[in-house]
Structures are given as structure tokens and as C-alpha cells.
């Protein structure tokens, strides 16, 4: 690493990227604490400046780094700043892994992050917790950057938990509302369940490698070392991968741990955009891509990932169809799209997964921000049934939203088309057909429900005139981000135009050295461009029809839509209530756990058995014995004396005789 920036070695400069948002977080945190509870006015310009500047600077640095360090393709690992944990042969240093994957992720995070910061300055401008908000938002960027740049699993885990913590705070940002606070808690705890798997996976890796007596180098859990010793992990690859996937399930909201994400919409909308759409929730996908060399060792795990992914995609899409809360729809949509990504990485097409991750970041962020703009304009209203006809009132929002809907619906030539197409094609080629069918269905459903939301919100007649009259377009700071993201949603996919469409498949080529799985590429080659084109066309047609149906139903024939819901109430209710999963969890896990803890463990075992029976039982026995023996104490001194004397006499007799 001879290259320097301002005289500092590049391997050190890297650390600046997460550090900048961290400094911003520290600064804003101090401001927030000093101006606590509105006792002093928050210096908003200053906060805004610091809060926005830091991600932007980080973005700039990342861009610089991107162009600087894209070669060699496999990247490099920086020497550790310091050894974070080092005991015997377990070593985990603060070192970053810089390669194309992490740089792309870094770009997405800092780029989208910066935009959302800018958007937030408008969205949150009237909130009392302005500084606090940016503290956590900056902190989140810091944690997320640590996550993606981490050079080893423990450090990644730091980011992993760090984003979870920030998510906890941001979901519960308006903590005065107990439900919102609960949502944050739920997110954190569900994530913890996932982390449990992550931890165990780390332990298992370490145990396996340590027992083989290998030299740790930068540590057994460092990605470089792992890759080097992947052969030694062959036997335990399946459990490791499955356990890691449990972590990913939690973080990326996959079945069965997806339940927190819809609730997470309780947070401010930009937060949903950044954390629960663009970045954090994709960490699971990133992690699997990062550990591709492990996953490819275990076909079972891969298949499991793909199955879960596509099932989640379909499942969430079904729920999304009937949701009435604009953000909930988007949330389920996110879950569904994440499922797609997992489907991609599960079948071995890591770059497709990352590709979709990127495009999804653009359009889903745009969608969320758009919905935020709507909510902002409608003073907090989130129910789509109360909206309608907002196009005239909020043109920019409507246009950007519309473009993003087209993108997510997979319309040509928007970003979503290319990424989704790639996934379905790769899934068709590399994975089982059943999964492809499910994915295919989901693609249609996606188009359907997104169009439905768009139609309900922006098209048709206003259903609540009061709301409609007071609606207004959002300020420039917000629309700016919308516009940028909308453009990205349109053009973002063009970096990966497949060869079948006479593109040069830039994205895939670029990642090819990182994921050197020749057999995958051969299979894809083998399938041929014809298949790919056919599939694309069929999918596009299917999606288009679904979108059209939704458009017609929800912008013009609303009655039919409502009647449909009334006609099959059971199905509708089932979907509306999200398959009752939350309720099932509540009855099967949460309530029994609470009951067992309270009644069985605490009140019975602890208080009755241990404390009353054993502890106080002992005491009671003693006092009973005491009371019994105290009968001997007649108070007649001479009785004692006589007994004593007789005893003494016997003793003397024993010695004398």
C-alpha cells in the first residue's frame, strides 16, 4: 500500500470512512444532551451541517477509494489498527477488508445514506429530537460501515449489533408512544435471536480451526484466513452456514424472523428508507456474499437459503397485497425483495443478489422517501384508503414514486427489471423449478401491490377531502433526494444489462473475480441467451398484466376491489392479519415464556420450592427443634445442676474406675 492520501497510507485512510459519521454522531450526541428536553434551543444549522457533511465526506472518500482500490479485484485487508481481542490463538483485530464487494456496499450506504440525511433535514425539521435523530442516524452509518468493511467476523458482528442498536433507537425514536418503543424492542430482540446463530457459527468455526492446530494469522475468523482454510471447514460447513443464516434471517427479516420489520415502520420514514430498506436489512445478503466461499461448500445450506428466501418473498408479497398502511406495504415489499436477494445468493448467484440489493436500495429508498413525503404532506396520515388523487397536490413525489414503482415492478428498462430478471434467470438455471415458479408468482404480485399502492395514493379521486385540501408538496431538501433516487431507480440497472439484451453485463463481470465459481458461469452460459430472453419476456409480461390489473382495480374500479375482499372474507382476513404470525408467536412463544418464567420459575421454583421449602424449611426445622429442646429448659437451675453433676459424676467414674 504505497499509495497515500495527504501523506496517510491508504490502509489508514479507510478507517476514516466510518470514523467521520462517528464523529458526527458524537458531536450531535453532545449537542442533544446539552440541549436536553428543549431547555436550550437546538442549534439546528450547526447540527444539520455536521450531520450531513459527515456522510457526504464519507461518500466522497468512498468514491475516491472506489476508483483507487478497485484493483486488485480480490481487494486487500488492512493491518489491524489494534488487536481488539487476542487470547491465545483467538485473535480479532480492528482491520478492514477492502474489496469490490465492500466498496460497492460502501458506496450504496454512504450514497443513499447521504441522500437520506439530506432528506431528513426537511422531514425532521420540526421535531424536538432533531439532534438526537441525527446522532443515531450518523451512528447507524458508522455501524453499517463497520459491518461492511469489517475484515473479520467479530468485527462484522460489532457492526451487526451496532446497526441493530441504532435500529432499536430509531424505531423507538418517538419513545413517548409505548407501541413504537415496543417495536424497537421487538426488532432488537428478534435480531438477537439471529445473532445467537451468528455467534454459534463463529464459535464453531473457531473451534474447528483451532483444534486443527492451524496458525491463526490475522485470526481464524478473519475473512482472508477463513478463505485460506475453507478446506478445513468442509465437514462443518453446513452447520456453520445454517447458523450464520439464522443471523441473516434475523437481520434481513426472513421467515421466521421477519416479524420485526413491519413493526419497525414505527420509526421516522427516512429511517425506514435507510435502515429498513436500503442498508441494514441487506446485511444478511451481504454477509452471505462475503462468506460465499463457505456457502458454496454446503449445497444443503445454499438450498435452504434459497428456499427460505423465495418463500419469504412470496409470503410477504401476499401479505402486502391487502395492507392498507402505506409503510406496511412497503415493509412487506422489502421483506419480499430481500427474499429475492436470498433466493439469488441461495442458488449461487451472488452477484445477482448484490445487484438486486443495489437497485432495491435505490428504488425502495425512493419509495419510502416518497411515502414519507406523502405522510409529511398529509401530516402523519398513513392509511392509503384515506388518500387518493394526490398527484395534483404533490407532483414531484408522485412522479418519483411512480418511477420507483415501475422499477420495483420490474418494468423495462427500469433498474428493477435487470436485477430481478437476473435473479429469476439464474434461479431458473441453477435452482429447482419450484422455487422459480414461486419467484415468478412473486414478481407478479410485486407489480400488483405496488401499483395498487400507487393508484390508491396518487390516482383516482380524493377519498378524504379534508386531508386532501391540506396536503402540500414537500420542501426541496426532501424532493431533492427523491429526484436523485428516482433517477438512480431508472438508470441504476443499466450497469448490469445482460448480454442477451446486448449489454455488456458490467456488474457481473466486475464481480466475477470475487466469486470464482466457474461451474455457475458455465451453467448460465449453457442455458443460453434464448432462454434468458424468453424468461425475461414472460416475466415482464406477467408483471405488466398484474400491474395493469391493479391499476384498473384500484384507480377506476374500486368497488370491484372492495367486493372482492368481501366475497372471500376468510382469505382477505388471513392476509390482512398477516397469516396471524404475530399472534401465533405471541401464543406459542411469548406468552408461555412469560407464564413459565413468572408462575413456574419465579413464583413456584424460586419462591416456593427453593425459598420456602428449602431455605425457610431449614429455618423452620431448626426453630422447631429449638422449641422442642427448649422444653428441657425448665428454668429450674438446680435441675440443670443435678444433671450436670450426674454427668460429671459419670465422667469422673469413668476416669477413676
Amino acid at each position, binding site marked *: 500500500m504505497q499509495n497515500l492520501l495527504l501523506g496517510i497510507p491508504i490502509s489508514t485512510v479507510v478507517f476514516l470512512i466510518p470514523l467521520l459519521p462517528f464523529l458526527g454522531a458524537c458531536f450531535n450526541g453532545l449537542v442533544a444532551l446539552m440541549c436536553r428536553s428543549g431547555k436550550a434551543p437546538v442549534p439546528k444549522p450547526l447540527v444539520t451541517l455536521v450531520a450531513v457533511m459527515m456522510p457526504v465526506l464519507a461518500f466522497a472518500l468512498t468514491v475516491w477509494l472506489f476508483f483507487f482500490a478497485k484493483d486488485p479485484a480480490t481487494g486487500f485487508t488492512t493491518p489491524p489498527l489494534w488487536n481488539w481481542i487476542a487470547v491465545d490463538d*483467538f485473535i480479532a483485530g480492528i482491520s478492514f477488508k477492502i474489496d469490490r464487494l465492500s466498496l460497492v456496499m460502501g458506496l450504496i450506504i454512504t450514497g443513499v445514506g447521504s441522500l437520506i440525511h439530506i432528506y431528513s433535514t426537511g422531514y425532521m425539521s420540526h421535531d424536538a429530537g432533531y439532534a438526537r435523530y441525527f446522532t443515531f442516524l450518523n451512528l447507524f452509518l458508522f455501524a453499517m460501515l463497520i459491518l461492511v468493511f469489517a475484515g473479520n467476523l467479530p468485527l462484522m458482528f460489532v457492526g451487526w449489533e451496532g446497526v441493530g442498536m441504532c435500529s432499536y433507537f430509531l424505531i423507538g425514536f418517538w419513545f413517548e408512544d409505548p407501541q413504537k418503543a415496543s417495536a424497537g424492542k421487538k426488532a432488537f430482540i428478534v435480531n438477537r435471536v439471529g445473532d445467537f446463530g451468528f455467534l454459534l457459527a463463529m*464459535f464453531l468455526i473457531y473451534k474447528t480451526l483451532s483444534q486443527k492446530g492451524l496458525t491463526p494469522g490475522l485470526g481464524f475468523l478473519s475473512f482472508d484466513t477463513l478463505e485460506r482454510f475453507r478446506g478445513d471447514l468442509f465437514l462443518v460447513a453446513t452447520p456453520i452456514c445454517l447458523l450464520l443464516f439464522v443471523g441473516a434471517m434475523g437481520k434481513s427479516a426472513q421467515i421466521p424472523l421477519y416479524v420485526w420489520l413491519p413493526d419497525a415502520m414505527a420509526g421516522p420514514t427516512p429511517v425506514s428508507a435507510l435502515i429498513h430498506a436500503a442498508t441494514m436489512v441487506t446485511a444478511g445478503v451481504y454477509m452471505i456474499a462475503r462468506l460465499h466461499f463457505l456457502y458454496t461448500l454446503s449445497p444443503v445450506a445454499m438450498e435452504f437459503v434459497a428456499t427460505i428466501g423465495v418463500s419469504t418473498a412470496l409470503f410477504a408479497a401476499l401479505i402486502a397485497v391487502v395492507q392498507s398502511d402505506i409503510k406496511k406495504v412497503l415493509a412487506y415489499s422489502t421483506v419480499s425483495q430481500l427474499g429475492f436477494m436470498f433466493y439469488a445468493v441461495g442458488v449461487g448467484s451472488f452477484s445477482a443478489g448484490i445487484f438486486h440489493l443495489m437497485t432495491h436500495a435505490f428504488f425502495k429508498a425512493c419509495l419510502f422517501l416518497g411515502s414519507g413525503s406523502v405522510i409529511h404532506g398529509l401530516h402523519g396520515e398513513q392509511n392509503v384508503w384515506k388518500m387518493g388523487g394526490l398527484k395534483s397536490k404533490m407532483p414531484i413525489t408522485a412522479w418519483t414514486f411512480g418511477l420507483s414503482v415501475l422499477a420495483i415492478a420490474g418494468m423495462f428498462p427500469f433498474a428493477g427489471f435487470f436485477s430481478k430478471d437476473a435473479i429469476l434467470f439464474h434461479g431458473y438455471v441453477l435452482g429447482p423449478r419450484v422455487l422459480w415458479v414461486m419467484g415468478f408468482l412473486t414478481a407478479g404480485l410485486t407489480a400488483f401491490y405496488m401499483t395498487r399502492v400507487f393508484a390508491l395514493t396518487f390516482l383516482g379521486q380524493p377519498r378524504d377531502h379534508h386531508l386532501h385540501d391540506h396536503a402540500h408538496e414537500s420542501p426541496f431538501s426532501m424532493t431533492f433526494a427523491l429526484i436523485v433516487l428516482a433517477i438512480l431507480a431508472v438508470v441504476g440497472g443499466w450497469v448490469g444489462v445482460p448480454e442477451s439484451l446486448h449489454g455488456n453485463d458490467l456488474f457481473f463481470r466486475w464481480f466475477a473475480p470475487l466469486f470464482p465459481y466457474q461451474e455457475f458461469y458455465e451453467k448460465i452460459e449453457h442455458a443460453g441467451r434464448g432462454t434468458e430472453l424468453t424468461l425475461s419476456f414472460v416475466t415482464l409480461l406477467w408483471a405488466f398484466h398484474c400491474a395493469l390489473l391493479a391499476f384498473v382495480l384500484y384507480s377506476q374500479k374500486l368497488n370491484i376491489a372492495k367486493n372482492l375482499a368481501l366475497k372471500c372474507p376468510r382469505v382477505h382476513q388471513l392476509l390482512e392479519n398477516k397469516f396471524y404470525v404475530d399472534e401465533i408467536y405471541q401464543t406459542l412463544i411469548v406468552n408461555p415464556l412469560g407464564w413459565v418464567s413468572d408462575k413456574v420459575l419465579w413464583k413456584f421454583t424460586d419462591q416456593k420450592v427453593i425459598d420456602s421449602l428449602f431455605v425457610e424449611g431449614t429455618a423452620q426445622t431448626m426453630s422447631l427443634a429449638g422449641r422442642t429442646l427448649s422444653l428441657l429448659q425448665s428454668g429450674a437451675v438446680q435441675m440443670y445442676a443435678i444433671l450436670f453433676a450426674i454427668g460429671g459424676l459419670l465422667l469422673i467414674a469413668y476416669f477413676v474406675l
Partner: protein
Amino acid sequence: MIETHLLTLLIFSPLLALLPLILFPSSQERTMKGAVLALSLIPLGLGVTLFVRYYGTGGFEFQEIIPWFQGYQIYYRLGVDGFSMPLMVLTSLLVPLVILSSWTSVHQQLRGYLALFIFLEVGMMGVFASLDLFLFYVFWEAQLIPMYFLIGKWGGERRIYASIKFVLYTMVGSLLMLAAIMYLYYAGGKSLSFEDLLSLNLPLNTQYVLFSAFALAFAIKVPLFPFHTWLPDAHVEAPTGGSVILAGILLKMGTYGLVRFAFTLFPRAAVDFIPLLQILAVIGIVYGSLVAMVQPDIKKLVAYTSVAHLGFVVLGFCSLTHQGVAGANLQSLNHGISTGALFFLVGMIYERRHTRLISEYGGLASVMPLFAVLFLIVTFSSIALPTTNGFVGEFLILLGSYKSQPLFTAIAASGVILGAVAMLWMVKRVFFGAVTSEKNKALLDLNPREITVMVPLIILIFVIGLAPGLILKKTELTVTKFVQRFQALENQ
């Protein structure tokens, strides 16, 4: 002087703080408190010196040997290694903070209160520094007395019950230990010095019995399930400072004793008993977290999480792997810091509202933001979020333990989830939501004194969380020595 007698100085220098208690009249209470606080910084200084000067050779450093009962080969023998050094430093840190924290919360008989803490410090330091079982036992019992009075006099409503329970529980164990010590004395060539006992090769059956006696005493102190029921009562009833010391130091004496005496002196028995201890530790972890979850009382909740945390520590020591033991050793320190800090915070809020019931609170984050922030930081330390100290400890423990016992570790790791549930649920109920109670609306945020109490602990939380090497390096060789002892045993 300081080099050669550092430990003696550390043990007895707290007594200097008794002077102001004697010299100042009641009318000058503020001056007296200030003087006590200032003098209590002397042990802290010595503690820091100990930390800095401790080389980490793996053997005992700063040894002092003075004949005591000459005819009986009982010595005043002191020394520290990597197991005891961090705890001594922690002790020297917590006591000044406790004194500072009791500035306004103790109204009656402040003199006695402070004096008891000073005696407590002497006892605790002695326990950690003793290398002669007799001396150890003396200090072990000696620290019981001040704690008994602290709970019994300055405690809550059921203080008498709690203090008696505390003492009796502990006594049951320690008397068994005394018997074992006496046996050792005669079995071991009439010496109770640690080094002499190390070379002792007792028959296995004897080891079983002695180990059981020692382990029971320490298990009660830790406390391991099912000997834990004294802890919630003691914690709930103890005054703030008492809870802090109880959680921060006294519980560590159990794990410390376990590793220093029970494991080291009877290694073969230890190896055979470790599965049992592990099971108990794992039960403790899960059980403690679950029961903590449903507690209506903040202190009780924290107490039960302590049970879980100490379960981790025991699990780590039982792993007999480098990471496990080093992590457990670090976690002892961590738990002292974070649970101590939690008790401080609970004490601060108790001082304002005089209730510990979770249901009495709600929405405190908007009334006391700084308090909420500190509380959350400490909570995250307690539930082992990375970059806090708690994570490093628990991570290493689980890592090491996984090496020897994957199944137990997996179950224990689920305790991490449950612990988070318990703590976060409590945080949610206390800090979030709207301010429902009228009484909570006018609460004042932390004052500078209270912030001063918390700052060192918060700093330590992050310093240890980010650079645990500072401590791990010092303890490394000790851990290695400990682990190798068992490895050698396995190889036999």
C-alpha cells in the same frame, strides 16, 4: 516501601479514612464526607499503582510473607496474580464511588455507614490478596460483618430478613469450607500456605470431598442456581452502596475462590465436578434471565440478571480453555463495573422517587434524558453489546466454553437473548412511553455529583469494550498457567 508492601498498604490504607470519621463533629458533616472521600482515593491510587506495576508474569507478584502464628506455620502471606489483581483494582475504584454516591442518600448514622464501607474494603482486599488459607478465611468472614450491618441497618423494609438470610446462607457454605481448611491443614503437612498446598497430591476421594466443601461455599457466594435466593433479597433490601459492592465485588469472591482454591487445589476433583458446575451455571443463566424478565422490581431484576451473568463467569472458568478462563476473569471485572453502575443508577432514581417498582415509572427518558442515556449505555454493557465491556467477556466465555462443551454453550448463548429481553423490557417500561405518573413529571436529571459517579464507570465500559487487551495481556500468563495445569492433568 510501596513496591514491597503494596498489598498490605492496599489492604489497610482504607482505614485512614476512618480518621475524619473520628475527628470531625457531626456539625461538620460535609467536611467529614469530603475528607473521607479524599482519603478513600488513596487506595484507589494504590490500586492504579498495582495495575500499572503488575507485570503479568503468571506467578504471584508483590508477595509478602510475615510469620503470624509461629508455632503453627500460619503466615500473613499476600500476593496477587491475574485473577485477583483486576478485582482488587475494581474494589479500590468502587469504594470511592460508593462513598460519593451516598452523599445525600444516607441520612441516618452516616458515620457508621461510611465506616462499614471502609471495613468492607479492607475485608475484600484481604480476600483477594491472601495466599494463606487461614488469612483468607479470616478476611472472608470479616467482610461478612460490615455487609450484614449495611443491609440490616440501612436497608429497605425487609432488611432484617434479607441480612439474616444473607449471612446464614453464606455461613453455611463457609463453615463447610472451614472444615475443609482444617482438614487440609492436617493433610498438608500443617501448612495452609497456598504454594504448599499446590504441591499436595491428595487421593481422589479426599479431593472430591474437599472440593465439594469449597465449591459449595463459593457456589453460594457466586451464587449458582439453586443457592441464589439470598441474592435478590439482599440486593433489593441493601442500600445503593451495599448493592453496588455486593454485586460488584462480593459475588466475585465466589468465582474468585472457585478458581483460585477449589479448582487449583483439587484439579482432579474439579475436572470430574465441572460438568455439574456447568449444568448449574447454564441453568442459572437461562433461569436467571427468565425470572429477571418477570420481576416487578428493578433491583430484583438486576439481581436476577446478576445470577445469569455470574453463571457465565462460572461457565467460563469451567471451560478450562484459554478464552473461557480469560473471558470469565474479564467478565468478573465487567460485571462489577456494569452491574455496579446499574445499581448506582437505580439508587439515584430511588433517591428521587423512593420506589423501585417498574410500574411506578414510565417515560423517564423525556424527563431525565441524561439519566436515560447513561442507563441505556449500562444496559447495553449488561446485555453484551459489542464495543462495550460486556461483549468481550461474554464472547470469550462462550467461545472458550464452546470448545469444551458446545451443547451447554449453545443453551447458555440463548441466555444472551433472554437477558436482553429482560433488560430491554424493563428499559421500555421505565424510560419509554408517556410520562404517566404525576410524580415523575418533576424529576430532576442527574446532578454533577451523580454524573461524576457514573463517568469513570462509563469510560471503563468503553475502554474495556474496545481495548480489552489492556487487561487480557496482564492476565494472560496467569490464565495460561491455570489452563496448562489442567491440560497436564489430562495428558497424564
